[in-house]
């Protein structure tokens, strides 16, 4: 039967096989990301994030974030800024800013654990 189809409907058969291959390929990739997600809960700090986003995602008190960036509460008002914009304003690389925030988060979490 396959040989008949190959002779009479070659493009249809090839299209079917290509679509089947793509289905398996994307299903495999989706599975890989599902497994990855179950094992990596914390995202790495990146330039597109806003301080508010980090506070929300890492479940921090806003003061921890304000302290890490050297901002007062009032600076949180007004237009949102991304880490990339804050870094550019200060003339430092995003990585430096991110390292400072990650250190502050680690400090805060260590303090939380010690306090319990």
């Amino acid at each position, binding site marked *: *039967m396959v040989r*008949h*189809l190959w002779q*009479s*409907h070659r493009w*249809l*058969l090839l*299209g*079917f096989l290509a*679509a*089947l291959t*793509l*289905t398996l*390929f*994307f*299903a495999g*990739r*989706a599975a890989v*990301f*599902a497994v*990855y*997600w179950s094992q*990596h*809960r*914390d*995202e790495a700090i*990146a*330039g*597109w*994030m*806003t301080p*508010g*986003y980090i*506070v*929300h*995602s*890492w479940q921090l008190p806003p003061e921890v974030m304000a302290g890490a960036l050297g901002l007062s509460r009032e600076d949180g008002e007004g237009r*949102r800024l*991304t880490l*990339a*914009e804050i870094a550019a304003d200060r003339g430092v690389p995003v990585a430096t800013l991110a390292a400072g925030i990650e250190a502050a988060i680690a400090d805060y979490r260590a303090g939380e654990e010690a306090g319990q």
Partner: protein
Amino acid sequence: MSDLFFSLVSTYGAFVVGIATFLSCLALPIPSSFVMLAGGAFVASGDLAFFAVVVAAFAGAVIGDQVGFRAGRYGGAVMQERLTTSPARAAVLVRAQTFVERWGMTGVFLTRWLFSPLGPWVNFAAGATGMGAMRFTLSDILGEALWVALYVGLGYLFAANIETLASLLGNAVAAVTAAAVTAGLGVLLWRAAKARH
């Protein structure tokens, strides 16, 4: 690449979400689902207003679909003139129109949110085969509302993990869409095989 779109959303806000859904409904390769997830996440973090993100995403999508549908109408009129010159081709056109008559609304609805990579092509095909504007618009609005609610909602709920969620959803949607195409081609193959006997 997702980083670039996430930072466009955090810098320029809901406006970017609307532009992204609009362009992606015209088959431009814009990862609008990433953008909507980011919109939802920035609502959760208090950086963007929920109403603005949802309205922008929905309006962009519906307007984009209408543009595609109208383009199909226009292109379809030109195409029909040529097709109807030969009886064999005219028969193909009639079959396509019957198919759209029967499955059009379901197809439009499902290609908004579930098989979304097919959406722009379905807009054009629906216009070209003469699907009624009211039927198209009704199923389009329902489907896009679900699409926007799903992605903005998931971005809001899983704000802390939108990068991984975006990759997971992108691949899952591609897999489901490819599976639907596989099934469709499978049915055609099956019929071709049976027709021989």
